[in-house]
């Protein structure tokens, strides 16, 4: 187990290096230098040169990259020229909120997607299966923020069952925390639920055609037992793969859904950073996302072992 984790971490290094190079390159892809941005249009060229020196922008690119990457490794993504705050501070303050939203979305996606997929597979070819395939096709097509707007109004504003806007931190009130995440979770999770349902349906149908299912039936096992004990476990592997990919989708989607529900995650900061070209914040978010994606992929890889004993031995 330990060795597997270590191996996967090493294998993930190229991805991390690649993303860090791309993130670093953002600064230099921008028209005009960072110093010009900070000092504003029509700044004194000497002042710009001075700031360049102060920021280390006069050094060779490779040196700049290693300085930046070294700092990033120690958790320092620099300071936002816009707010003057440390990017790391902003991230540590906002990321837990965004992760909460993403996890809420993932929870909805799994709770909705897996049973739907199983249900459709067991009614293969019948009208319920066809209905569900239309439902999942629609699920893939609805914009998450539209669902969010509708939920916020029809559930939040009209019935007042759940908050239409805002976010309560877990530490403040766990119950309110959950309540403030339900609607965003549904809005974010529906699309992924459709993806998971389709994968689950296809995976289960494929497994149900395998010879060992015939064996289980030949032993006189009940249909329920054949599906639950013999088929599902083997059908989960492809679902796990899709689930890993959905984490990445959730992180992107959370940024949008946060805006619908006025949730103070990283989204608002990020959008502001995009508009104001606040590059360090964007670099920080990109690097953080890459780390999450890598960690999730490792977890998914390890989960294969839980579903398939053949992976465990190798």
């Amino acid at each position, binding site marked *: 187990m330990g060795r597997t984790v270590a191996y996967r971490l090493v294998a993930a290094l190229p991805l991390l290096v690649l993303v860090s190079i791309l993130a670093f390159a953002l600064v230099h892809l*921008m028209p005009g230098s960072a110093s010009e941005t900070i000092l504003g249009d029509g700044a004194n060229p000497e002042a710009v040169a001075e700031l360049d020196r102060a920021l280390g922008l006069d050094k060779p690119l490779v040196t700049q990259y290693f300085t930046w990457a070294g700092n990033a490794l120690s958790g320092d993504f620099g300071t936002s020229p816009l707010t003057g705050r440390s990017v790391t501070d902003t991230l540590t303050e906002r990321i837990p909120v965004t992760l909460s939203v993403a996890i809420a979305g993932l929870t909805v996606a799994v709770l909705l997607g897996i049973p739907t997929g199983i249900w459709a597979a067991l009614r293969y070819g019948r009208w319920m299966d066809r209905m569900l395939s239309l439902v999942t096709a629609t699920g893939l097509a609805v914009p998450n923020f539209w669902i969010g*707007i509708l939920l916020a109004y*029809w559930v939040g504003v009209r019935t007042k069952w759940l908050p239409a806007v805002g976010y309560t931190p877990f530490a403040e009130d766990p119950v309110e925390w959950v309540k403030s995440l339900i609607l965003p979770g549904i809005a974010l999770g529906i699309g992924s639920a459709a993806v998971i349902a389709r994968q689950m349906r296809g995976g289960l149908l494929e497994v149900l055609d395998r010879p060992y299912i015939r064996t289980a039936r030949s032993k006189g096992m009940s249909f329920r037992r054949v599906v639950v004990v013999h088929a599902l*476990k083997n059908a989960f592997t492809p679902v796990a793969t899709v689930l890993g990919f959905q984490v990445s989708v959730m992180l992107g989607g959370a940024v949008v859904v946060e805006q619908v529900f006025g949730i103070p995650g990283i989204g608002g900061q990020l959008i502001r950073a995009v508009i104001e070209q606040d*590059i360090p914040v964007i670099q920080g*978010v990109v690097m953080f996302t890459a780390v999450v994606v890598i960690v999730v992929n490792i977890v998914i890889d390890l989960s294969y072992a839980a579903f398939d004993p053949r992976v465990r031995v190798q």
Partner: protein
Amino acid sequence: MTRRSVIRRLVRHPSGLIPASWLTLLVFAAVFGDWITPYDPNEADFLALFEGPSFRHPFGTDELGRDTLSRLIDATSVALLAGVQAVGIGLALGVPIGLAVGYLGGWWDRIAMRIVDAIFSLPGLILAFAIVAVLGPGITNAMFAVGFLFSLRFIRLTRGSVLSTREEPFIEAARLSGAPTIRVLRSYLLPNIAGPLIIQVSISFAAVLLIEAGLSFLGLGVQPPNATWGTMLREARLNQSQSGWLPWPPGLAITLTVLAFNTLGDRLRDVLAEDPASSPPVVPPAEFAPVRPAASVDSDTTGVSGEAFEAVYSLSDALLQVRHLDIEVPTAVGPALAVRDLSFDVSAGDVVALVGESGSGKTLSATAIAGLLPRQVNIVGRSSILFKGDELVGSTDDELRSIRGAHLSMIFQDPMSSLNPSLTIGYQLAEPLRSHLGMNKAQARDHAAELLSRVGIPNPRNRLADYPHQFSGGMAQRVMISIALAAEPDLLIADEPTTALDVTTQKQVLELLVQASEESGMAMLFITHDLGVVAEIADRAVVMYAGQAIETGEVFETFANPRHPYTRALLGSVPLVDKAQKKLVTIPGRVASPSDNSPGCRFVDRCSVSVARCSEAPPPLLSLPSAGRIVRCINPNGSPDGSPTVSSS
């Protein structure tokens, strides 16, 4: 397929027609938007704020009293243009890079695909943010960002097509003939890749629309006051306390359009997949008549003396009585009968071999008896399967369940794929013990170990915790046997249980089966193509050909004195070690296909003693009580008009 016929087929089905109509409507709205909008989309009317749908404003008005329908129509061109831009950039970047990478191969390919995979694993929206940050907000920049991201999809697709086209035999041949690879690829690649590319374009359009709407919703795409579906939702969200109606029209427009592009892509895939060039040739109607089971069965059995037939088959003590079994399978040309009018008995304690070539229907018959036929394969006609006096045909799965495992077990050809890879052997073995014999966990465990030791697995107690992949093929088949025997069934159906094993293991497994059968008085239906195995273990043999039983009898009798020309030919084709044979004897010709419903004998084309009558009418099922034999042949003695010589072995 010509372009026209693709389009015609695309819209023939509602799943193609509806999305195509909707998208045509959108294009119309985008082109003629300025003429058909009922109001100026940006004209405010402060006397008509937040109106619901009405005659004057079919979709209502927004916070400035602007007509929602007009804004919706006005936004169409932006949405479609954004899609064209992003997908166009994606194509323009992705296809050449994909072609180059696929063509160059080697390190180029590896490095490029590593980068593509890495970028692909990150959230697209966040990457789009990063690019928009560099370029600045605005719809053109946003769509450039999205186009760049989508180029990754096209790189993957194009590269994949180049690689698979490269490996086509005709490309290889053209290359060997001296044509430069690049020219060969150019002329063959385009037709190969056009279909998948069009599908990908349609699906990408859908994804781009969602992203465009998202970016505009966040204020990073189209800037106000210009209307797009995304900005309309943004405004709806800002005014959500005023009107619950506002988000509906733009949201529905996005959803329907994305759904239309996705569905069209799926439909396109189906249409291109049913390309006649790639599907099996359609047999002309004259050669194929749809199956009418009852009729064909009736005609098959004409000529049998009813009494004689029933006389042989009225063995009342038979454990298993299969009568007139017809099995229908789906084929490219419609349903066909793969097993026709199969009748035979298995008496208690008997070992009956079902013998035949591949495609003779023997495995299908065995599977049908256990009620384990795959989906879409059905028992039809007047088939009957009586097991211990109970009719199995038409029984529900629940009724069959109480028989399967407990009274009737089955083992299969490939033990490895027949055992569940994710459950331990102990668990799989304990299942029938617990459900049929009512043992508790500890009892089942003890008994499972004993069963394993009985089939000759060393160190059984420790092996219970092992998974199937930790066993060799022979050992896995022993495990399968122990599972099948666990509840001490009356009948074991063994479907080629030794075929997948190596020769030394085969013999051991056979001995094990025979021993189990003798010890417990268990009957066995043994499916095989190996005549040697039949001679070794079976009491009776049912020889199958093209879905029919053509000869049934005692093994010794049948082999010594085969009556059907096919049985004779089959026995003649067995290479004998003790006889000096110059060459391997084979039966010329091919087995009649299930969809072949020509009136005569199914063996007529390959028969060396056939006469004109053989292809005119189905041969009768003759019972030869003296020999305890049933033969489906007009000439079971191989004599007069055919004048063959029966080779006695």
